[in-house]
């Protein structure tokens, strides 16, 4: 084929330029360590890169959320553990007071210690977390939730429970409202509450009772009346007779799926009330205990009143402690599942990064050998051009 001089030069420079362009691209790839420099290098790959990057970014956001959730739940767990310790001590003191060997002075000393614990509990209920928010205020996190008022204890928070996204389809509650932790505690044994009538003249003491058959329990307020010191009857709020029988100290009086027992020597006309449990906050329960300890029980009848009240308060304290345990268990379970989610997220991030790397990153060995190959090609193109362009017939015409 005939080749024009122009064409010869053009071809020479073209092949050098082409080699340079290839070399330049390889060099850019090596410099950035990326295989895909612009979307056009691999359009589907670059959509996949965006996708993977998005997955990694949202997993990282979830991991950060987990950090916040953990901080929150750890604050709550710490507060709950101190609260449980305090309640443990309160219960010990109550049991001690109930041992019957305490005189009035001792009881007052116990009451004073309990007052300290009550103040401590109130302080703990108003604890703030790492970000300065009240832990037990529901959604009203910037308002001090609990305070003592003339009539008792008031709660300024609400029943809200904040959740945080910790996985693509996974939310976790990062706290419990003061309502759920301190307020919504059914008193008595959780189903019903027994109480001693202050006008009683006997020394009969009622226990907290048990539920034997929840299904048979009919919610109502029942009155257990002693007709004589040896016979009793139970009537409901409509004054209908529910059960009656002969009294034996400490024996179970069973009706409607529950049983209670009275011990001691009740007098004829003495009454005890069995009412459905209502919610009672833990502060009131402790306050009731302190109030009981501050009353002096000198005669057997007031002693019976004292013991009935003390028994009831201890049950209330037990209910509160049960509630704290169940809240704590919930917190522990959430921390546990957060932990699982955290490692699941970490696994996901790792897997995505591996996938991302395989789509986006450069194979150095391949790129390095490609670079050498292209260098060689460029050299060859330059050398051959330099040699060939030198050949001209005009060189030989003298």
């Amino acid at each position, binding site marked *: *084929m*005939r*080749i*024009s*001089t*122009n*064409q010869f030069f053009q071809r020479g420079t*073209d092949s050098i330029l082409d080699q340079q362009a290839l070399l330049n691209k390889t060099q850019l790839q090596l410099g950035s360590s990326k295989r*895909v*420099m*612009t*979307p*056009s*290098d*691999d*359009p*589907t790959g*670059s*959509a996949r890169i*965006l*996708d993977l*990057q*998005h997955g990694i*970014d*949202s997993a990282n*956001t979830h991991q*950060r*959320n987990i950090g*916040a*959730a953990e901080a929150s739940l750890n604050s709550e767990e710490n507060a709950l553990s101190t609260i449980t310790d305090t309640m443990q001590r309160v219960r010990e003191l109550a049991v001690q007071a109930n041992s019957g060997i305490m005189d009035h002075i001792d009881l007052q000393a116990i009451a004073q210690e309990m007052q300290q614990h009550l103040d401590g509990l109130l302080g703990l209920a108003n604890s703030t977390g790492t*970000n300065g*928010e009240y832990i037990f*205020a*529901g*959604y*009203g*996190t*910037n308002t001090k939730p609990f305070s003592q008022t003339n009539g008792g204890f008031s709660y300024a928070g*609400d*029943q*809200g*429970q*904040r*959740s*945080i*996204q910790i996985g*693509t389809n996974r*939310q976790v509650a990062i706290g419990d409202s003061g*309502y759920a932790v301190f*307020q*919504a505690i*059914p008193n008595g044994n959780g189903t019903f509450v027994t109480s001693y009538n202050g006008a009683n003249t006997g020394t009969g003491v009622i226990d907290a009772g048990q539920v034997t058959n929840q299904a048979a329990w009919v*919610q109502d307020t029942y009155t257990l009346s002693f007709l004589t010191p040896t016979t009793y009857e139970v009537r409901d709020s409509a004054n209908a007779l529910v059960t009656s029988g002969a009294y034996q100290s400490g024996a179970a009086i069973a009706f409607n799926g529950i049983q209670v027992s009275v011990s001691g020597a009740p007098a004829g006309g003495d009454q005890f009330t069995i009412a*459905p*449990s209502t*919610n009672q906050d833990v502060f009131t329960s402790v306050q009731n205990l302190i109030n009981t300890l501050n009353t002096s029980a000198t005669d057997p009848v007031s002693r019976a009143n004292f013991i009935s009240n003390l028994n009831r308060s201890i049950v209330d304290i037990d209910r509160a402690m049960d509630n704290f345990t169940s809240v704590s268990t919930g917190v522990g379970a959430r921390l546990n599942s957060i932990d699982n989610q955290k490692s699941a997220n970490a696994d996901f991030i790792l897997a995505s990064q591996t996938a991302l790397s395989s789509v986006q990153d450069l194979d150095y060995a391949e790129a390095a050998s490609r670079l050498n190959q292209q260098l060689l090609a460029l050299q060859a193109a330059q050398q051959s051009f330099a040699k060939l362009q030198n050949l*001209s*017939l*005009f060189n030989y*015409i003298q």
Partner: protein
Amino acid sequence: MADIFGIGLSGLAAAQQALTTTGHNISNVNTDGYSRQTVELSARPPQGSGGYFIGSGVDVVNIKRVYDEFLVGQVRTNTSSFSSADTLQQFSGIMDNLLGNPNTGLSAGIEKFFSAVHDVANNPSSLAVRQTLLSQSGSMVSQFHNINDSINQQNAQVNTAIKSSVSEINALATTIADLNGKIANTGHTGTSGAPNDLLDQRDAALDKLAKLTSVSIVKEDSGAVSVFVGNGQSLVVGIQTQALSAIPNRYDPTRYEVGYSSGGGNVEVSRQLSGGSLGGLLNFRNQVLDPAKNALGRVAIAMASGSNTQHRLGMDLNGALGGDLFTVAAPEVLPSSTNAGAGSVTGTLINANDLTTSDYNLVYNGANNYSLTRLSDGQTTAINTGGNSPYTTTEVDGISLTIASGATAGDKFLIRPTRLGADDLSTVITDPAKIAAAVPVAVAASLSNIGSASAGAVSVNKPDDRVMIQFTGTNAFDVIDQTTGATLAQNLTYTSGSNISFNGWTVQVADGSGTPAAGDKFYVDHIVTSADAANSGGADIGQAALNPPDPNLTDTVTITFTSATTFNVAGATTGTPTNAVSYTSGGVISYNGWNFRISGTPATGDTFTIGPNTNGVGDNGNMQQIAALQTQLTLDGGKATFQDAYGQIVSDVGTKAREAGTSRDALNALLKQSTDARSAVSGVNLDEEAANMLKFQQAYQAAAKVIGISETLFQSILSALNG
């Protein structure tokens, strides 16, 4: 006797002309479009001398250019194709780099915005964290703007390039017409004695023209050529030229088109032009730039409108309902500058999730009839205003049009629903306290409850929930939120045309061809209303008007259990029944535009109160919902998230750039091949010329020798005579 002297002289002259031509070739070795020339020699007619003929020397009969018409045409065609692909590749490459760059890429911006939303959800009462969300939304908006500005700049560059290409084409047309004149003036018509260099110059000018746009060339008998562009617009006829011009688009004056004056007016011929760098530019604008801008606008609109809708359902730190987070662009409607009537059309965004990236064309056909054509696939919707003005259409692909009368048949409007999406995006809130992180309503169980029932968190019903209106009889209907599963109302009495309002929208069901039949169903889905295909009655559902949330949302409502399985509702304005409602543990309860679940066993007398979320600064319910928007498949008929839609732009532009690159390389190879082929025929080879030079030099020397010999012969005769 033959004239030796004359013969020698003719050889001398021929060799000299050949040497001159060789010199001309050597001199023009680097001239564009030059075809090498060769001297055609022919023996002079012999002289009869009795019984034989004797030669009488040589004549130069022609100096011709070595030229192959077919190869030249091929080079020209390939130049147009290559130049088009090359321009497309160059411009798409800029877009490609812009979108692929992780620093300018939008994906990271969207990611950071939603990450800041999560941070507010983690710590909703902190002003510092809220401030960060505001700055992140600001920087996401500026990332939208950065990409959009680059697109706008490219549009400006395309305009400039169109103007300069047009003036270059006109200049070349003049050059060609001039050369046509000169060539015709030579009077040359046949093959011999052509004005080689003028022809080469004209070919070079045609090549340059082909680089700008595809041309078709017709040779005239006079030797002139006529040049046509597009689908037959004459650019050069003989020595006459018809100039192209750059004119503003008749809908959008910020875009330039190629105009061709015909019959008194300039008409747009951009669509007819193809090939060359001009064709490449127009391709780039149509295939890459406009779709990318529309798609980017759609992401901006969907993101902004989705966030706004949810944000409006929330409550801010001051206890007020949330406002808009972003401004959302309205659909752009551009009347044609050629419209004769005074009719006007405005567009309203109805539902961002239904938007497409296409533009639309609205044409008035007369007699209240309009037709709306989606330009991406040509699908047409007929609109009849029924003589009403203004008349508002039902939703078409996420927008509605309000048409005011006055149009003349044939008037046209261009509708671009998403074009300004990124241009008009901006943040609205500057006060961090105004971020609505909380749900405006909260539920509280009464402390005196003795049952075990507990309430879950309250959510606000979304206006885009799918809601079914189901007729239970000819005169009564139920309303069921199929997204949350809540029964919004039961056994409402049907009055034709009266308002039915739930979840922040209002619709009317009215008698149409008949009354509703029992079992008929109507749907309100994403504010789009529809009737079930299986309906047997004749009632119709009207369009939904939207004003979320429910006006009674924060009213205090009390739910009181009258038994373990029934409850009464007090204080609810929206929703029925309110008496002896049956209770299922875990079932959804919805009134006044909110919903929540109660689970467990309630006791008689237990109450739950739903009311304003007073002091709910620690609530993050609404932020969680906004954060969830990031992963919701909202676009493309529920197939893509915002980021998916953005990723689609990146991969679309990437694909276009790659295609352009691939076809550019292929066409480049083709162009090289045809250029080589032309060069092989017409190009100057210096070695060849050197050899020719030696050959002609020797011929010249030999001819000189002939003259010398003839002189010697003549001397011999003279000396013989003198001798």
